[in-house]
């Protein structure tokens, strides 16, 4: 009984002490004591806390390693698929860009054309020709000129099937195109391809003065090819002593490898 009362007395005393301390705390009387105790604890707390942080880091690294490996694999796969998607989108964007430029040229010049996609290239190394996805069913005929953006001619239709055609590039050795220097209608010649690599203008009189950078365009002497389509720019002109004609090396203004969409002109300007 006495023990029971003693324990109840202690409980009541301690509860009363706590209530008193609550009052003293809010009256800020024991504030210096609290502050002193916190200062005493602080250095030991810091060391214990640091030890805790190190253990937590170790635990976190251990548990998250598996997650990190999985996440890395997932991100790697995502990167591969995004790179492929990005590549596809870039090609589409480039095709769209070419399409817009060609369309603008056609509208400005009120020309009818058939838009065609480049779907392949002749695998034989000596033949510089591209395969297009439009053919006779779409109104394409042999010798029709093929242009790209800004009216730059890249070749002529070599052969036609109902739903496809072959474009002979100007750089092919068999390609011949009647041309002239832009702004100087009397200087005419024939643009010939050189082994799939470059263009040269032949049959130009040695008397004609040709400057570097001048633009070479189609002369319109061919029935299916209108005048004024840009071929390239003059790189250099070479005159040989025992020859009637000079040879003009031309620089193409576009990269054949970048072609995705082309326009086949179906009527003249």
């Amino acid at each position: 009984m006495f023990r029971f009362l003693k324990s109840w007395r202690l409980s009541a005393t301690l509860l009363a002490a706590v209530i008193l301390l609550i009052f003293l705390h809010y009256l800020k009387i024991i504030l210096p004591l609290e502050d002193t105790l916190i200062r005493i604890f602080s250095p030991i707390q810091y060391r214990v806390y640091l030890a805790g942080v190190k253990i937590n880091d170790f635990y976190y690294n251990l548990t998250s390693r598996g997650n990190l490996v999985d996440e890395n694999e997932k991100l790697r796969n995502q990167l591969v698929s995004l790179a492929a998607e990005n590549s596809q989108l870039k090609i589409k964007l480039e095709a769209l860009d070419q399409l817009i430029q060609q369309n603008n040229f056609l509208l400005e010049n009120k020309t009818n054309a058939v838009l065609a996609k480049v779907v392949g290239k002749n695998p034989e190394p000596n033949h510089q020709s591209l395969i297009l996805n439009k053919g006779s069913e779409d109104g394409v005929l042999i010798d029709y000129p093929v242009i790209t953006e800004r009216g730059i001619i890249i070749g002529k239709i070599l052969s036609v099937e109902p739903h496809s055609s072959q474009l002979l590039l100007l750089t092919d050795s068999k390609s011949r195109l009647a041309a002239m220097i832009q702004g100087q209608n009397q200087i005419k010649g024939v643009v010939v391809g050189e082994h799939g690599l470059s263009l040269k203008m032949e049959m130009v009189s040695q008397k004609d003065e040709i400057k570097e950078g001048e633009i070479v365009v189609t002369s319109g002497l061919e029935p299916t090819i209108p005048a004024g389509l840009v071929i390239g720019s003059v790189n250099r002109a070479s005159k040989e002593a025992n020859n009637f004609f000079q040879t003009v090396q031309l620089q193409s203004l576009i990269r054949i490898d970048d072609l995705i969409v082309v326009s086949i002109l179906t009527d003249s300007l």
Partner: protein
Amino acid sequence: MTSFLLNLLAIFLVVIFQVSFISASPWPINNINLILCLVIFFAVLINYQKALWWAFGGGLLMELFSQNFFGLITLGLIITAVILNILFNNFFTNRSFYSLLILGVIGVIGYNLLKTILGFLLIILGFKFNFYQLSFSSLFFWQPFLNSLILIVIFFTFQFSSNRLKNIFLPKNF
């Protein structure tokens, strides 16, 4: 005197460990309340007065690092010790491992509910009270489970290091 100082030092160390290590640990480890476990252990198996002193001293030291109403933790610990003492004296009459576990679970859940009820009373009295985020899973599973594990560890550590909780067979004198 020596015993008093040793107990005071032990309270200091336990509070530092609780505040700087356990509370800063990741979930669910931060659900462990070492001071509460020791109060329950002392109240059930050792000495009720010791439990009250540990509740008083440990609670007051924990108040220094609490953002809540000053005195809430101490009141919660003392009242929990009182309730456990009443339950032990009236329902669990033997100091056994099982009574420790059951009273441990009751003590942990009771302590948290008590703090919440006191918090509501404070709001009624016009004081501000931060209702800490206490989820049902934390209150009814993680806290009782983890603190019970700690009680088991304390029990077996104490049993190993002391004769007080061991069975003693009295020799028969013929």
